[in-house]
């Protein structure tokens, strides 16, 4: 039985990271209707900036984590400013492809650094003894990751619900012309959406880096695996991202724990999200919490 609960715990840990990673995608989609295929690369760069600051610049991780959030905030903002601002009003197909191109560019840039090929791991800053309750263990790093994720998601939801900027972002996502007519600068809202998405991506990257170590392939794979998460949760719902993230984490861990090794199956955790994604696209494309505004063709 403790095996079952162990899987539940690790599923929730993985799922909360998925939720945080998916949050950035939802933020960008919500305001500008662009799916960001470069999200995994932004997550990876956030993690690498955190590592570089912590280890190479020898800044304590509590501070370097926040500095990297700020750096990635401006990085993502400038990506929007340089590449995507010109494409406002272009067909959606070219905007999506620009993000694919951006993913490729950031890939190349990261391969130029040592991070592209080598593995690194963060220095241990929390007790390495895991907490064990009734045979179910969770490491301090994982616990800290879950707590930080919860705090971040809560503050993002508050930001969206209550703050003026958050409300203007929601207004833009609802109707661009109407929000322009009440004096909201739509391009700057887009920039801000990218910047906050970059911030959440960097946080996700930092947490993943601490839990699993820094490996570029694992990190940028997160940018692909968040797509099943956001589709399950609904592309424009923060709550959906959280719930679907945890569901997806649980599914992956259960598949890894119970399916792998039986019936000649292996690596089912990697493929199940995509199978679920295809099924959801066929039967309930707006996801669990998304707005039912899918245009039927």
């Amino acid at each position, binding site marked *: 039985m403790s095996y079952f609960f162990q899987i539940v715990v690790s599923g929730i840990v993985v799922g909360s990271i998925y939720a945080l990673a998916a949050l950035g995608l939802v933020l960008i989609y919500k305001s500008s209707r662009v*799916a960001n*295929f470069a999200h995994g690369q932004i997550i990876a760069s956030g993690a690498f900036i955190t590592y570089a600051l912590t280890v190479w610049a020898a800044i304590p991780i509590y501070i370097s984590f926040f500095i990297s959030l700020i750096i990635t905030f401006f990085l993502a903002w400038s990506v929007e400013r340089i*590449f995507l601002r*010109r*494409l406002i009003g*272009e067909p*959606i*197909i*070219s905007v*999506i*492809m*620009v993000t*694919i*191109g*951006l*993913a*490729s*560019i*950031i*890939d*190349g*840039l990261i*391969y*130029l650094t040592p991070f*592209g*090929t080598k593995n690194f791991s963060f220095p241990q800053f929390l007790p390495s003894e895991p907490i064990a309750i009734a045979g179910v263990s969770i490491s301090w790093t994982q616990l800290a990751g879950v707590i930080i994720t919860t705090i971040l998601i809560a503050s993002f939801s508050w930001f969206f619900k209550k703050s003026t900027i958050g409300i203007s972002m929601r207004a833009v996502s609802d109707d661009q012309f109407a929000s322009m007519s009440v004096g909201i600068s739509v391009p700057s809202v887009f920039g801000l959406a990218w910047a906050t998405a970059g911030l959440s991506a960097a946080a996700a990257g930092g947490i993943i880096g601490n839990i699993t170590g820094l490996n570029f392939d694992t990190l940028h794979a997160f940018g*692909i695996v968040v*797509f*099943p998460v956001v*589709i399950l949760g609904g*592309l424009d719902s923060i709550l959906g991202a959280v719930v679907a993230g945890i569901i997806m984490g649980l599914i992956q861990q259960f598949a890894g724990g119970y399916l792998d090794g039986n019936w*000649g*199956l*292996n*690596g089912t955790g*990697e*493929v199940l999200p*995509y*199978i679920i*994604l*295809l099924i959801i*696209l*066929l039967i309930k*494309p707006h996801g669990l919490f998304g707005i039912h505004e*899918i*245009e*039927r*063709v």
Partner: protein
Amino acid sequence: MSVNRWLATGNFFTAYQEEQRTFLTNLDRLIFSIFLLILFTWPIFFPLNRTYMLVVDNILVAVIAVLGLNLVTGFAGLISIGHAAFVGVGAYTIASFSRVLGDSHILLTHFWLILILIGGLFGAIMGAIVGLPSLRLKHLYLAIATLSFQMIFEWAIKFLTFFNQGQTISVGRVMWFTGEIGRENHYLFWYYVTLTLIILLGFGIRNLFKTRYGRALVAVRDNDRAADAMGMHPGLTKVYAFALSGFLAGVAGAVHAFLYKGAGIESFTLHHSITYLAMAIVGGLGTLNGSFWGPTAIQILNLQVEKFSEYASNYLPSAMNLATALRPLTFGLVIVLFLMFEPRGIANWWRIAKSYTKTWPFRY
């Protein structure tokens, strides 16, 4: 009224059929014939060594694949991020035959042309299945559906024992009327096969767009509601676009498997899907000749990048692999720059050059 069939200085169409002609003037036809003749004869006069012949073959295989991608992304307006997986379906069809029957079974050595068609057929079936969500959905969702197909394909190849867990499955050499195609003629032989396939498929697609089935694709891309009102079924048209693109990709994959005498997962990853997209964008989406420019440009660029990184790595610490870094960097830059500054691709330059020479030496 007698019409000058050789040098037309303008468009004087009197019927819609005339506008649909593949060659507007006899001069066009002549130039195209000479071009084809050059394509078929140059390897006799300038024999390349095996390395460069393989590059040329790669370009041609990519041309078939990009023709398929251009159909679905350029003409039908549906982004496909899983095109390498469809190519892989074709390649692994051949590989499966080879695995089940043995790599020099008579089916593989003598009836390889039929196998190439079967590879295309399997690609078409997979394309139709992946295209099924398009009965209900549009743009972004479809892009994500093709992406998930890419991931499922990679998983299936990597983890199923039938596919040798991603390791190369070998395919034997093929026979021609003159006997077995040996090592020295292998790339030359596949050059001619691929070139012939491209010409057949290219004319097929050109003629497809003269029929209602081809025009339906463009109509659904431009305005699906208007297309619906005109009596087309947008969803089915999209599924059929995916099937058609899957067919071309499958043919490309089958040729790839024969060309490399095997199939392995490393040629059909997400990275390759993005490369195909880059080729289609650089060539020019929604243009037929763009499908030829794009692969040529990208493959030549790729070659130059590799040459440059080989040259530059003499001056750099040996631990760094410059080619792995520069390849995605240049691809990404090329995609982004073309989308930002020349969204219609190299085909647009070709169009400009053509309209410039049309009235030469009299400009207006």
